């Protein structure tokens, strides 16, 4: 028996939400009284494997091969299944990234195992994993009971806290990979990284969002939101109203039909606080609302409220933080 975690890497670096998953996996392994095994896949695995040793893994399995340089489901799923077998894993976890969700689901389906996708809580009941999922787009919660010997889950990024790295522990061993390029139908022609310096919404500690309140001058309004975000090292978010009006691309949308986020700090500027928006950010640790309408529903859920026009308040706040954070 063991708990197996896939540590996803991109461009030679681990995706940080995988360490959150590792932290929770360590607790699950302790409760089950089993070992925690990390799996690192790629053309180069040494650096991320060494890092995994500092995040609580009892041992690390690496699958190192040039054909594994790019993430491709049909190859990675075979490696994951080999690792499950090698580690005798009964609990298999990934972060709930796009790839983590796809890979865990594919391996679970192949093995006829149960899965809890995008889990927001994980625990143990007897010998089995338990999970909590958010369904109906954030409007219902359900616990998941597994009826299979092997149990899969992907953990929603930021649902679990980031563990502290400790001293390196355990061994690293190489998993035999027997996959040739001819076995893999998908061919990655090119990879383009998104704008450098842009903070991803789902990983962000701080999010500054804008809504319909920018309408009088959308470009200037979102520039002010972005200025504050830059000073705070935050990601830029938006309400559906702002996205539908074409003020900002869909990838920035937070809410029921956008991204679900849970940052430490969420600053909502000119966002009224429709229930669909709250479904996507309501679990943020601290919520700040800036809105010139003091009756906006967002104030009912905010920890701090400022009744001001964002066009005046945001420059002042940005200047203040520039002063404080230097």
């Amino acid at each position: 028996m063991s708990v197996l975690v896939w540590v996803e890497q991109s461009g030679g670096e681990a995706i940080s939400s995988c360490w959150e998953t590792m932290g929770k996996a360590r607790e699950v392994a302790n409760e089950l009284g089993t070992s925690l095994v990390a799996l690192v896949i790629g053309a180069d695995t040494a650096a991320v494997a060494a890092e995994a040793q500092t995040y609580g893994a009892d041992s690390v399995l690496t699958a190192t091969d040039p054909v594994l340089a790019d993430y491709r489901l049909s190859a990675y799923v075979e490696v994951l299944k080999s690792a499950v077998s090698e580690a005798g894993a009964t609990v298999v976890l990934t972060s709930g990234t796009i790839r983590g969700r796809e890979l865990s689901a594919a391996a679970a389906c192949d093995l006829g195992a149960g899965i809890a996708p995008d889990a927001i809580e994980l625990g143990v009941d007897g010998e089995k994993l338990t999970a909590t999922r958010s369904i109906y787009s954030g409007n219902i919660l359900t616990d998941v009971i597994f009826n299979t010997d092997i149990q899969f889950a992907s953990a929603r990024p930021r649902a679990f806290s980031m563990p502290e790295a400790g001293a390196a522990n355990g061994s690293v061993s190489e998993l035999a990979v027997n996959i040739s390029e001819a076995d893999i139908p998908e061919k990655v022609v090119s990879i383009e990284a998104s704008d450098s310096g842009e903070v991803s919404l789902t990983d962000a500690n701080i999010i500054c969002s804008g809504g319909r309140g920018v309408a009088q001058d959308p470009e200037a309004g979102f520039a002010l939101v972005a200025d504050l975000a830059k000073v705070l090292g935050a990601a830029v978010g938006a309400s559906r109203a702002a996205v539908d009006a074409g003020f900002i691309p869909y990838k920035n949308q937070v809410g029921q039909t956008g991204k679900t986020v849970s940052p430490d700090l969420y600053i909502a500027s000119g966002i009224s606080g429709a229930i669909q928006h709250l479904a996507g950010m309501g679990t943020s640790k601290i919520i700040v609302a800036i809105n010139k309408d003091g009756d906006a529903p967002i104030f009912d859920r905010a920890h701090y409220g400022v009744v001001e026009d964002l066009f005046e308040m945001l420059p002042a706040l940005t200047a203040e933080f520039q002063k404080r954070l230097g």
Partner: protein
Amino acid sequence: MKIAVLIKQTPDTAELPKVSADEVSSGSVQATMVINPWDEFAAEEAIDLADRFDGDSVAISMGEGGSTDALKHALAMGVGSAVLIEGDDSAADDWSTAAVLAAALKEQGSFDLVLTGKQSVDGNSGSIFVGLARTLGYPLLVNVSKIVNVEDGSVTVERLVDGGQELVVCPLPAVISVAKEINDPRYPSFMGIRKASKADIPTISAAGLGVTASSTVSWTNIRKPQIQSTETQIIEGGSVEEKAAKLADALLAEKVI
């Protein structure tokens, strides 16, 4: 080229907040049921691909008898034809649903592409199309933001991944889940709606497909999320600068910056 597009009938997103835990537990959600919004992007892409590559598009849905509104929406948009797989998918797990869909697709003929939305707004699992691709043994491309080309038995797509985008080629047949960035779904035309309302949608029985249902997971303790009551502190001050300073003090004290 034959294109299948998978359609689910789900609660209208405006009514999702009103869905109760009891309704979900008993499997009888009272909300107005419409086409899953993510599936509209898949339907639009199926129509567009059928035009671009001179193909046929078929919308396929699984649900109880008579639950054809979502399929009719797809037909009204311009999808060529529709099929309903009659069956109750509520008791089974995602892998059973995927297996039923796979069997139905095989029965309907050989498809070159199977298009789906990114997930349903009710189940939120995003696992069905993964299970479908694995069951059919087709390659899977998720979160596709552009279908660049289909030629010589392969498809070239752009897909969005965490931190960037990739250009990927893979042989047909393949399963593709589409991202919202891929297109702007059209509104059904008046003529389209009229035609769809008269359409006779053939049904096939899920039970007749010979798939053994599995139940790898069960749901329990279904509940509404607790809304934490928050004490709102309104930052007062004589100027925006004063308010900004007070808010900065408060947020630094909260140690969230």
